[in-house]
């Protein structure tokens, strides 16, 4: 399908205007606006730090997160080389936070990206096709959206035993509805534009319109939405764990650690409760800050154009 002509010219996807700024310039403007937004940078820094601690930390801080040690349960922070103490089965809490963070971040990112990709393709096809195809595709989205997502996730988690990849599929398979609606709206307004009609009159296919014009034009909205999807996915993993349908041990995630910590609320083991809780809040905040910053960046980009 890809002809050499398609890969040339970096200004495709924007209306042809004589005084048009090149695409790379627009991207650079977007990056500049993002960097001017202090909150967005803070969000990015929070994410980088949390991810570095979770993924690089275990290289320097070795703990056994597979075998339980019942001789060392509920140790207070600071004892026997456990800076954050140990949990109810003797896992080192700091090491567990790193391991749990890996799961939370991987599931959040993967589910967010999966949902965004599926939703974008679905919405672009529906919006571009129009007519009864659009109606049928979007009524299905409406129907699935009217089932509260947590009920749907739990129903599916009760059918299949959740593993990390299963969680990604379950959450990704139902979180794409929001992006689908967004992209469909964009596609509807884009498909009647002159440059797409011009492309079609020159013999371009509908698939080409979707791939080369509609998706690139909707990409700003989609990326902004994706960051919020990631934040939501991390929260959903936490809710599923709290409701007893998360990934079973020895795997861990912050939501599961937090809900395990709930049982220790009144026994004074604060190190089992607050660190995972704060970690979740920080990572979700980070993605919300990044999303807000990106939205400003893309909106300014559109305005200057």
């Amino acid at each position, binding site marked *: 399908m890809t002809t050499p002509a398609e890969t040339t010219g970096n200004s495709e996807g924007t209306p042809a205007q004589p005084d048009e700024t090149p695409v790379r310039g627009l991207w650079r403007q977007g990056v500049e606006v993002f960097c001017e937004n202090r909150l967005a940078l803070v969000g990015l820094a929070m994410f980088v730090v949390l991810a570095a601690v979770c993924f690089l930390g275990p290289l320097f801080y070795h703990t056994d997160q597979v075998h339980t040690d019942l001789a060392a349960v509920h140790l207070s922070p600071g004892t026997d080389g456990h800076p954050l103490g140990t949990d109810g089965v003797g896992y080192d809490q700091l090491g567990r936070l790193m391991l749990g963070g890996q799961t939370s971040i991987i599931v959040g990112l993967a589910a967010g990206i999966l949902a965004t990709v599926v939703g974008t393709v679905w919405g672009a096809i529906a919006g571009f096709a129009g007519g009864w195809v659009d109606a049928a595709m979007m009524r299905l989205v409406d*129907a699935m959206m009217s*089932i*509260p997502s947590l009920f749907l996730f739990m129903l599916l988690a009760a059918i299949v035993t959740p593993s990390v990849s299963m969680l990604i599929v379950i959450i990704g398979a139902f979180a794409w509805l929001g992006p689908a609606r967004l992209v469909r709206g964009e596609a509807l307004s884009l498909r009647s534009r002159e440059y797409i009609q011009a492309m079609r009159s020159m013999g371009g296919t509908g698939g080409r319109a979707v791939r080369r014009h509609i998706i690139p034009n909707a990409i700003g909205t989609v990326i902004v939405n994706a960051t919020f999807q990631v934040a939501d996915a991390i929260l959903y993993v936490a809710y599923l764990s709290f409701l007893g349908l998360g990934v079973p041990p020895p795997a861990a995630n912050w939501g599961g650690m937090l809900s395990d910590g709930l049982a220790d609320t009144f026994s004074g083991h604060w190190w089992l409760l607050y660190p995972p809780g704060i970690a*979740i809040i920080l990572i979700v905040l980070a993605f919300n800050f990044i999303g807000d910053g990106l939205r400003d960046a893309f909106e300014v980009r559109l305005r200057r154009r």
Partner: protein
Amino acid sequence: MARYLIVRLGQALVIVVLVTIITFVILHLLPGGAARATLGKEATLEQLAAFDHEMGYDRPWIQQYVMYVQRLLHGDLGYSFQLNQSVTEAIGQRLPKTMVLSLLSTLLAIVVAIPLGVIQATRRNRWPDYTITSLSLLAYATPIFFLGLMMIILFSQVWPILPPEAPQGFTLGEVLADPAGLVLPTVTLAVVTVAVYSRYVRSSMVDNLNENYVRTARSKGLSEGRVVVLHTLRNGLFPVITLLGMYLPALFSGALVVESLFNFPGMGQLFWQAALKRDFPILLGVTLIISVATVFGALLADVLYAAVDPRVRLRRSAS
């Protein structure tokens, strides 16, 4: 208006039919099918076959779906052998309690969110706006059960004025008889809702404050308070009515978590316990009912919006 009502009702019914198809498909995707889901792990193959035959599950799919819908129309959502109760009865006992919890927390959220949103819009990009925005983001980023737990620690442990558990009772009356126990679940569920609503009120008010009619009102010499409350707020609040409908799925998801945390005897808790026991007749029944409630809640919000704002019904029935 009548035309708009009929079109909107038709859309809602189409969505409900699609939802029944989704639950029907899930029912048959279950490992071992509907028979295994109803009769449980210990049932023998003969029992499964007998059940399939009795329920008509050995017939063609289309026929099965028609029978499924017929049963639904007769109010038959299946039977939970684990609760030894019909699904309709189990849901009927709990639905009113969840509705009361959702309604109370929505009312609380509206009462709190509207002033917050107005304050933000009138003091845009100054410290009250920034403070409320930050708190909203914080509320949004906190898992509801963690927030609820903080509430329990603060208000029933550190400063013991409220019970940590929701009122226990079989009927709605028994639950309502203990208002103190309802406070923490209601407030917990309302906090996130406030964050969402106030943000919406803020942007709606900001849009309206830039309109010409506001400039006219100001140039007539009206006081700023009069302009904001009497002129802008009325128009600014109309879109919030649709948000009430759109937010329902998230509200019910939140109620599921809150009910589980506070041990509130509603639909969410019923669903949660059924999920842990893999009680599929209950799971599918609750999913269906909660979705129908969402569809008709959204319908109600849309109709209400059209009723109060004539611009909407004119625009929509024209298109």
